[in-house]
């Protein structure tokens, strides 16, 4: 489990934690059933305020990515994202916007951008569920 915070980013700290945990789940580095550090352990390791870590964990739990089992700890949830389709689409659109802005700055052709995206899609294996 490795989370790196960038405090110079305009992205709030709790959001950075949420994003990085989600990414690691998507890439398969974190697998269903894996245990996450407790709020206290994570807060110390980063270091970040415990309330900030708690807020991130609550968001991840609400999104169904992790589950907290009482007295047992926090684990990566089984099953895929329970996010609404519209929310999943919005997040993807946000990420693509950044890529397209860069592509325009670098004067890459639309075809080159499409090829790059296709390449990325083949790099990451499709999740087994869905």
């Amino acid at each position, binding site marked *: 489990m490795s989370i790196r*915070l960038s*405090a*110079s*980013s*305009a*992205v*709030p*700290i*709790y959001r950075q934690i949420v994003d990085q945990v989600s990414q690691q789940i998507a890439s398969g580095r974190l697998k269903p059933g894996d245990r996450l550090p407790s709020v*206290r352990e994570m*807060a*110390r*390791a*980063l*270091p*970040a*305020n*415990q*309330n*900030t870590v708690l*807020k991130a964990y609550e968001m991840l739990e609400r999104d169904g990515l992790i589950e907290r089992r009482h007295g047992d700890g926090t684990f990566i949830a089984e099953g895929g994202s329970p996010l609404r389709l519209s929310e999943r689409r919005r997040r993807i659109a946000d990420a693509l916007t950044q890529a397209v802005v860069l592509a325009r700055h670098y004067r890459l052709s639309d075809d080159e951008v499409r090829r790059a995206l296709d390449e990325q899609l083949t790099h990451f294996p499709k999740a087994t569920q869905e």
Partner: protein
Amino acid sequence: MSDAMIEIHGLRKRFGKQQVLDGVDLTVPTGSIFGFLGLNGAGKTTTISILLGLMKANEGTCSVAGVDPEKDPVEVRRRIGYMAENQTMYGWMRVQEIIDWCGGFYPTWDTGFAMDLCRQMGLSADAKVGTLSKGQSSKLALILALAHRPKLVILDDPVLGLDPLARRDFLRDVIGQLQARDVTVFFSSHLLYEIEPICDYVAILHQGKIVACDTVDALRERVRCVELHTPDAAALRNVPTLLDVRVEGNRTLATVADYGIAKDALTRLGANGSFDDGLNLDEIFEAYVAGRKEVAA
């Protein structure tokens, strides 16, 4: 006791002709980690000295851990833990000796607890204080501030002069030792991006006043930078909560303290929302302490 660990109202302090504090109001909630930010010379240390009862204010009132520091400075210092900027300690003493020596000043001193902290933070009890690195000295100063088990700890620029690894270590200790024990932590700094992740609240002291005081998340939510189409100086002046205006080429960027309040006025000035951006804490701080509200002619 109220749920505020520190309450400051209308605090004013003048040195000669210089008005250092010009009506400071501040409430530090019990149990919070509170970052007190300001440029060098903004009056952070002056404020802390008044809170500790080391200095008297010209006007205003304070309550620190339920005590008025002006009336009862000894009791205040007994109730809180304090770590000074560039704290000096007797170099010839050993860690164990300085812990015992400081313990003489406090009836509630817990030497066993202090030694536990030394072990947890990797400080040897036999080490000579004079041979400790700067990072280790800061740890020792923190241990000395905690060993009488205060409910409030005031740290004046504790990471000043530490290298990046020692700073990270120190902030970990603050989180690990203090937040877990439900101690209120009030600390000053000007290294914003490093303290941001560990703070619940931040306050910005500028020109003798608190210009912003909020949770870090709320501050990031409300302070926004917006792109406008027309640099209409007269109209811009009417934008509520305006902090800063900058013209870059043919773009005009306006930073506002409360986007929710300013949004309508900004929309009338041609903001279309597409470039409305969140800011990091450094940028927020800069807008408050160095913002200009006039468009250069």
